[in-house]
Each structure stands twice: as C-alpha cells, then as structure tokens.
C-alpha cells in the first residue's frame, strides 16, 4: 500500500496513487472538477486556469490538473475564492473571441451541449457578458483541409490540438505564433492547414473542447444526444482500429477513435473521414449484360442465369476482397469447394506474411518499445496508425530501423536504414504483387540481429513477400523480440485463417466479390464469364457479365481478424437499401439453384467449429 496516499477532497477521503494529479484523484472518486485544457490522454499544461483548487498549506490556488497528490493533502474544489477565479477565467474566455454560441454547431442546452466551454458557462451561471467582447478584428476560418475546418473565433487556446498532434499523432504540424492576446494556433510556419504537413488524421478534431475544430460532414446536422453511439471496427486496413460511430437515423455522421481500444483514440484519414464517403453510383439491383449493356433484372433471374453459366463452365474460380468479414470468407470458400468443386479461391489483393512468428506484439507494445524495426512495408502509407505509433517511438528516442528496397516515408524517422534487394520472378501479370520477393543480405541480417539483441523491448514489424531466409532469420531472434505481421488488406489475416490467400487463378467462370473496395486498380485474369458483386460501378463492373449489388462496410455484421490476431466485431450501423441482403446471400441463392439448398443454414455452427 506504499504507493497510495490518502487525501481529502471536499471533506471526502480519497485514496489516490502516487504520481496522480489532484484532478485525476478527484475524477476517480467521482468528484467533478471542471477543466478545459486538460484531456485524460494528453500531458497536462495547466494553462486554462479553470481547474484551480484550494489546497491547504499552499499559499496560492493551484491547478488541479498539474498538482501532484501528497499524503494528507486537503483540497477544496468549490470555495468562494476558487469559484471567483474560475468564473473570471470563463468570463475572459468568452470575451476573448467570437463566442456567440447560437451560431456554433456545438451549442446546445446544458444537457446536450457538445462544447465544454458552454457547459461550464451553464454550470457557473454566466448568463451575460461581464466583460463584453471588445474585439474589432475578425478571426479567420480555415477550411482548406478536406474534411474539417478550423474556426479561430471559437478557439480558446487550450492547445489540446497541438498536444494531440505532438503526442498522439506525433506529426508536429500544429504550433502557436505571436504571443499574448494575439496568440493563434497555426500550422507549420503559419501556412493554411491545407498546405501544411497536416495528414488529416483528425486527432486534434477529436480533442477540441469547443467548436473551433469542426467536422465538415457532421456539423449542423445533429447533436450527439440525438444520435446513437456505436462502438465498431474500422475495416480500412488490417490494424482494425476501434471506432465510436455517431449514427443518426440511417446516416453515420461521424467517426471518432475509441480511446479504450488498442488504437487508443488514434485514427488515420482513411478510417476517420474517407471511409464515410459514399460511392457515387451505388448498384441497387442485379444486372446482366445484354448486347454490351448492363440491364437491371430481378434477383432470381440474375442468380439462375449465373448459376447456369457456372454449371457449364469448365473451371471456376472465386476472388474475394479482403474487406469482407470472416463469415463471408467462409461462405465463399464453402461455395467454391462444395458447390462448384473448385479449389481456386483467392484474395483480390492483400498479402499476409507468415503468422507463426512468436510472440505476437500488441499495439500497446509499440507504445513503450525501445526499438522498432519495419521490414519491407511503408507503414506511413499503408497502416498509417502504425506509422504514427512508430513516429511516437522516434520522438521518445527509441531506435527505429527501416528495412526496405525503396525510399519510404518512414525514412525521415529512421535512426538506421538497411537495404532490401528485390528479386523479380516473371514478367508482369494480373498478380504482379506475387512476383516479387525481397531479400536482406547476410550482413544486413547480422546487423539487425545485433540491434535487436541489445535492445530491451524490441518490436519487429515485418511485411509479406520476404525471402525464406529473412523469415528464418526473424524466427531465430531472441525470445524477447515481439513480432507484428504487416498484412495488407483489412481482413487478410482472417482470410488466411480459413486458407484464403492471394494466389494465381485461371478459370472460365469467375466470381468476384469486390464489395465496397475503394480502389479501381485491379486487373482480373481473363475469363469467359465474370460475375462481380460490388457496391458501386467501377472498372471491374465495366467488364463484368453479371453485376450483383453488395453492402457497404457500415451495413455489414460479422467479425474480422486484425494484425494482432484479435477478432474484432463489425456492427451494422445503417440499414442496407432494400433488396440487398448480407454479402453471402447471392452465394446461398446460387447454391440452392445448383442443388445445395441450406448450405449456409448451419453457417454459425460451421464458423464455431472452425
């Protein structure tokens, strides 16, 4: 019990851990001390002076967020003196810039307000301006970023955004310029945010206490109180970050990083903003190509037609996007194997390195790793969240070793750089990604080994398509080295569990499940008959003989497996348009036509047994 102390807050005895601040101790005891600049996941700066409290034996009022607890401390959080100082700070903040709440998207009643400043104003009864706003200037609104705006007139200079940018995203874009009352948040050397080095991860947006940073999509369309908040998983990449989705009616308004998940609030631009962009031309009905044109038909007709073609075909193959859930992966495998008697199932894209390198690292291991090695994958391009975590490690002076065959965005943060040799096997083909193997020379391997052996808590992130020798070398590393496989493709790890990975296929009839795959750059192997199940029209559907509608990721239900090897839930946030069933529904219908009705009736049992 030596690491706890007893303190008294407002007459209540509170047990606190040594190293906690007064604010943390109060919060864990359920005592509400108001604060604006403090954020539980950011370093405290004690600059807003709203959390001032009276501490016995201290001559001055002290900010609760930075004052450490000591044995026998007596704290009072709501004395007259404290409230006076607190109200003064709030008055000053209100008179500082344009805080006319009625024009702000965060504004609301005491219960519904999303603005922490407004909530405190309600709490302390600030119903008029004691110091009426005396500004003459207008503060700029910077909307040059694609997904969110910065309205400087709502800014209270708490600098949470700066700390979020520095400490969570490790991007160091934001700062302040000028001083005193002229202080402004700025990006880089005071350029607009759109021109800056900002990567639009939106961590600052999530940390902002007022309406200064505003999401373009979700502002002025509803309060959090009018929405459901659902904890879901991002299917943007194999990190599978935890999300908190704000859903109103049938629309997802906003995605926030889940502080309590493995990503600890961190998201990338793909997960936070781009994943909510809707396909421009959604496919809502099955279509069959007749005389070169796609014609809308009913489900039964499309399925019967397709099933007939597959029955005739000499050989069949299935291609599935790694964005699908485990359940759909199983369904696809079962459909090909049991109904079409074909073993040609492949991922549309996405490679998985060997998953047997033990012990497997978790994302939290990256947060205190002393050495991070990135082999054969540019994490700042692919799995950006891992890139940010690596940059954080670089900031706390851990060593970062980047091993790759070409220049990567991670190179700027590398303390050491080793070179991979690319070995090409054949000429170009639709499966170009499969044609390369990357090799690290023996000198490089011994250097890597030396770095890792001397490091205390090393993590190796290794990409796919390395040579067998490199994998063998990684397997023989000392047991304190932890491994994180850099699978490309959101659920490629899940697919690998069920034996589906990227391989070359040749077939007459091709069943392609593209789903809500955002990019168009896939080349399909030549086939006489191609079925594409997709959410929107793309290059893929242009060549398809039959097009089937599919579901967006927000309309799916199931599980995916991330690079940590954890199963993560995918939850339906919105309802799919009428007539579009679950992703495996067309497979089930075709199985029924082809003489295997009820193949997926026992789907849940199958999944459990696998």
């Amino acid at each position, binding site marked *: 019990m030596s690491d706890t102390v007893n303190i008294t807050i407002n007459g209540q005895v509170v047990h606190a851990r040594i190293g906690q601040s007064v604010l943390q101790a109060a919060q864990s005891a359920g005592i509400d001390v108001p604060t604006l600049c403090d954020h539980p996941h950011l370093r405290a700066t*004690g600059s807003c002076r709203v959390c001032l409290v009276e501490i016995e034996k201290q001559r001055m009022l002290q900010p609760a967020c930075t004052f450490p607890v000591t044995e026998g401390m007596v704290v009072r959080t709501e004395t007259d003196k404290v409230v006076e100082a607190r109200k003064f700070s709030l008055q000053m903040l209100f008179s500082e810039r344009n805080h006319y709440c009625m024009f702000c998207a965060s504004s609301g009643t005491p219960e519904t307000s999303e603005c922490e400043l407004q909530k405190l104003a309600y709490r302390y009864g600030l119903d008029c301006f004691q110091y009426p706003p005396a500004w003459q200037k207008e503060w700029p609104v910077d909307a040059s970023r694609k997904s969110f705006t910065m309205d400087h007139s709502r800014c209270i200079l708490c600098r949470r955004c700066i700390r979020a940018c520095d400490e969570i995203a490790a991007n160091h874009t934001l700062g*302040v310029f000028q001083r005193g009352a002229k202080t402004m948040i700025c990006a880089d050397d005071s350029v607009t945010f759109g021109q800056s080095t900002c990567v639009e991860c939106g961590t600052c947006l999530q940390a902002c206490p007022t309406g200064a940073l505003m999401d373009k999509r979700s502002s002025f369309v509803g309060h959090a109180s009018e929405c459901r908040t659902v904890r879901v998983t991002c299917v943007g990449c194999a990190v599978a970050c935890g999300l908190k989705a704000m859903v109103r009616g049938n629309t997802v308004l906003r995605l926030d990083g889940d502080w309590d998940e493995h990503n600890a609030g961190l998201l990338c631009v793909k997960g936070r903003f781009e994943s909510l962009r809707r396909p421009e031309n959604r496919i809502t009905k099955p279509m069959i190509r007749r005389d070169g044109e796609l014609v809308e038909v009913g489900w039964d007709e499309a399925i019967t037609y397709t099933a007939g073609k597959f029955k005739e075909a000499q050989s069949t193959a299935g291609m599935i996007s790694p964005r699908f859930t485990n359940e759909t992966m199983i369904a696809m495998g079962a459909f090909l194997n049991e109904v079409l008697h074909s073993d040609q199932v492949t991922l549309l894209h996405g490679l998985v390195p060997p998953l047997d390198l033990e012990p497997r690292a978790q994302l939290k291991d990256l947060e205190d790793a002393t050495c991070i090695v990135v082999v054969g994958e540019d994490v700042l391009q692919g799995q950006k969240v891992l890139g940010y975590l690596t940059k954080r490690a670089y900031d706390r002076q851990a060593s970062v070793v980047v091993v790759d065959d070409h220049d990567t965005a991670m190179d700027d943060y590398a303390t050491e750089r080793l070179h991979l040799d690319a070995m090409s096997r054949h000429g170009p083909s639709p499966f170009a990604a499969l044609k390369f193997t990357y090799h690290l020379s023996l000198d490089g391997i011994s250097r890597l080994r030396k770095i890792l052996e001397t490091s205390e808590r090393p993590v190796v992130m290794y990409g796919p398509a390395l040579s067998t020798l490199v994998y063998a070398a990684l397997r023989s590393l000392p047991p304190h080295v932890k491994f994180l496989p850099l699978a490309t493709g959101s659920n490629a790890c899940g697919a690998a569990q069920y034996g589906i990975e990227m391989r070359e296929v040749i077939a007459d009839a091709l069943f392609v499940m593209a789903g809500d795959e955002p990019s168009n750059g896939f080349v399909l192997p030549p086939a006489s008959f191609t079925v594409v199940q997709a959410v929107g029209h793309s290059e893929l559907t242009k060549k398809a003989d039959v097009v089937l509608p599919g579901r967006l990721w927000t309309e799916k239900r199931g599980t995916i497996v991330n690079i940590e090897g954890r199963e993560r839930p995918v939850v339906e946030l919105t309802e799919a348009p009428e007539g579009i069933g679950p992703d495996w529904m067309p497979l089930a219908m075709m199985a029924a036509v082809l003489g295997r009705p009820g193949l997926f009736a026992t789907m849940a049992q199958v999944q459990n047994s696998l």
Partner: protein
Amino acid sequence: MAFTEPVLTKRIAQDPSQRKLHWYDDYVRTGGYEALKKALTMTPDEVIKTVTESGLRGRGGAGFGAGQKWSFMPKGEKKNGPHYMTVNADESEPGTFKDRYLIDYDPHQMLEGIAIGSYATGCEICYIFIRGEYHRQAKVLERAIKEAYEHGIFGPQGMLGSGYKLECYVHRGAGAYICGEETGLIEALEGKRGWPRLKPPFFPAAIGAFGRPTVVNNVETLCCVPHIIERGPAWFKTMGTPSSPGPKLFGMSGHLNRPGVYENELGITLQQSIDMAGGMKGGKYKAAICGGISMGVLGPNQLDIKLDFDDVRFRGGCLGLGTAGMIVMNEHTDMVEALRNCVRFYAHESCGQCTPCREGAPWMRKILDRILEGGGRLKDLDMLLELEKTMGTMPGTTICGLADGTGWATRTFINKFYDEFAARCTNPDTVPLTISSRPAVITPLGANTR
C-alpha cells in the same frame, strides 16, 4: 549601517566622462580574481555557508536568499550528472538598467561571481542569458569570456590550475520580457518558446535546463559574491538593514536632475535616493515606481519609506523592492497616462499561456484607453480593481508572476491616486457601481481602442 565607499561600482567612476571599460588586465590590477583564488581554497560548502551567512538576497526582484538557493542544488553523492549555472541578464523590466551598467564597465566582476557560484554549486557549464537588445553588452561579455579562457579562469585546463572546470557561454535572447522569468528563461535557453514552466517543481534546482539541476542568478547578485568571499559576511552585514544587508544599485530615472545608476546600501529612504540623483526636476515629487513597474507605485506621502526588501512591501503597500529601478515622477505627471503605459507593456508582453493574464491585461488597457479618451465612468475603476484582483493579486491564478506585476501596478496606482483617476471618469453614469454578478451592460469598447 555604514556605506562608506562604492563596492560593486568601485571601478566605475561617478563622472561619466571618466568611466572606462575594465578588461582583464585592469580588473586584475585593481584586485580582481583574488576572491576566486580564495574561494578555490575553500570547499564548495564553505562558500555556500559564507554567502548564506552574509544574508545576500537575490537582486533580480524576488529577494530570495542566494545562499539558500545554492544550497538546494544536489551535493556530493546526490550529484549524478551535469549541473548548470544560468545568469539572468535578460533585464527587460521598464525602469531597470543596473545590470547593463555592470556589464558595460566591469564584466569580469560578474565572471568572477559566476566562477565562484559555479564552484559552490558544482556546475560544469554556465549560460549567460542576455537580453537580445543588449548588442554591445553581449559583445563585451564575449570578449571578456575569451580573456577569461585565455587566462585560465574557464576552460578544460581547470580553473586557475585547480581540478575544477567550467565552460561559459553567452546566449542572446530574442526580445521577450517573459524570458526574464527563470523558468521561461530556461525554456528559451533550451530553444523552445519562452513559456514559463509549471510549478511544482518550485525551483529549477530540482529540474532546470535540459532536465538537470540548474541555478539561476541575477547579474548583480553574482557581482556581490566576490566581495563577500574577499571581505567576509560580517563586513557585508555592516551595510543595509538586518533583513536586507549589502549594497544595492539604484537605477534612478524619471523627473530627476541627474538620472543614472547609483550605488548605496539597502534601506536608504526614498527621499535620500532622490537626493542622490540630484533632486526633482520640473516640479515637486508626486510618485515613484519603486522597483520596476511590476512592484507598484509609492505615493506622495511615502518619501520616508526605506528602500529594502521588506519596508517597501509592508509599509509601502507595494509588491516589493524588485530590482530598485526607480522611476520618479513629478507633480505634473498624468497618473492615468502613466498607468496606461505600464499596462500596455504587460498586454504586449503577456506570453499567452494562461487565460487570465492573456485576456485580463488587454482588457485593462482597453478600459484605460477609454478613460484617457474621456469615455470613462466611475465603475470602470471598480472594474479595473476587480480585474487586477482576480487576475493578478489573487495568487496562483496564473503560472508565473507577470500577472501579479500587472495587478500590483494597477492596484497601487488606482488606490493611491483614486481622486485623480475618478476626476477623469466623468461620463454621466456617475453612480459608483460595485461589480455585482449582474452588471448593467456597458457599451462595447471596440470603437475607443487605440
């Protein structure tokens, strides 16, 4: 109480035309670096004990015991890495110019103080943080440090042949007043924005520059040290008052016949200091800012206030003696204008970290602007007093003391010259209102702002 001869300024002639810069040779010829030789024969603890016994209080404004501050530094086995000595020569307080005078004519006196102080506190590296505008002084210091290196004071060969080594560098500030606050200074020294650090830790002796124990001293404090070592604490205590012993430089400016830096002991009266500078010019005495504007103002009937660290505070009603940068004003001075000038300075120099100071100081300025332009009402004065109380004089509402300075200046000006202020606040709304929780709405100030 006996101040018989100049101490700190003994090499500097009273007559400006006779003053000359003392380089190394001149300094040694007049008895320089003897104290350092003596200090090196003592143990560091003995040096600290001597300085503590002398009762030397920091001359940078706060008046904290110099020996006590040094004794906070980890010693012996507790020392587990480099210590830093930092000299605060960022003299930016309006009315204060004593450090410039010392560096201008006698830089080696300070370097000797640095050498002794660093030896006592176990520092390996000394940074002299000098105000950015002090171009000439920075050059003087750089040359003096070069000489000191050449003569074996600093450098890797050991101080005057002893085993103790000290490196010394000049770091030039970039023009921010807030970098004179010791933690702001340390941040700026580290290459960051000069924002004062959070307390606790209350002293940089625990965590200072680059995360290491650091001692921050004022130029004048260090200049006193060689004299204390050389002539002993008992001699030092013969000057000044029991609680504030020693000599002090008074930077006399304002409506005086012979403004300038004068040395005398602590505890002389305000009247004596005015006489020292040739008496009042252009009219009778009205007010005097006692130690840089952050300390507040002394009123017309306070000529008998003793200028030491305590009397100014307890009898004078000010924050303290500060740096003894006196700005003396005659009877024709407009006190509203004077206060506005002070407050304008704080509004400009607030670093912007804490809400109350960042916004409170511009607010005071706006109100004073309005009063000056004839739009003042009596309740504006209540508002000013309310502002200074909640932002400044109520301790702890901000991270550093800048807001306290703003508060004390405003409070003392208005309280001591209330009638003069009230006479300027003649707008029709004459009923003096105390600011209640629900005041009448007043017109926005924007149109009147300069």
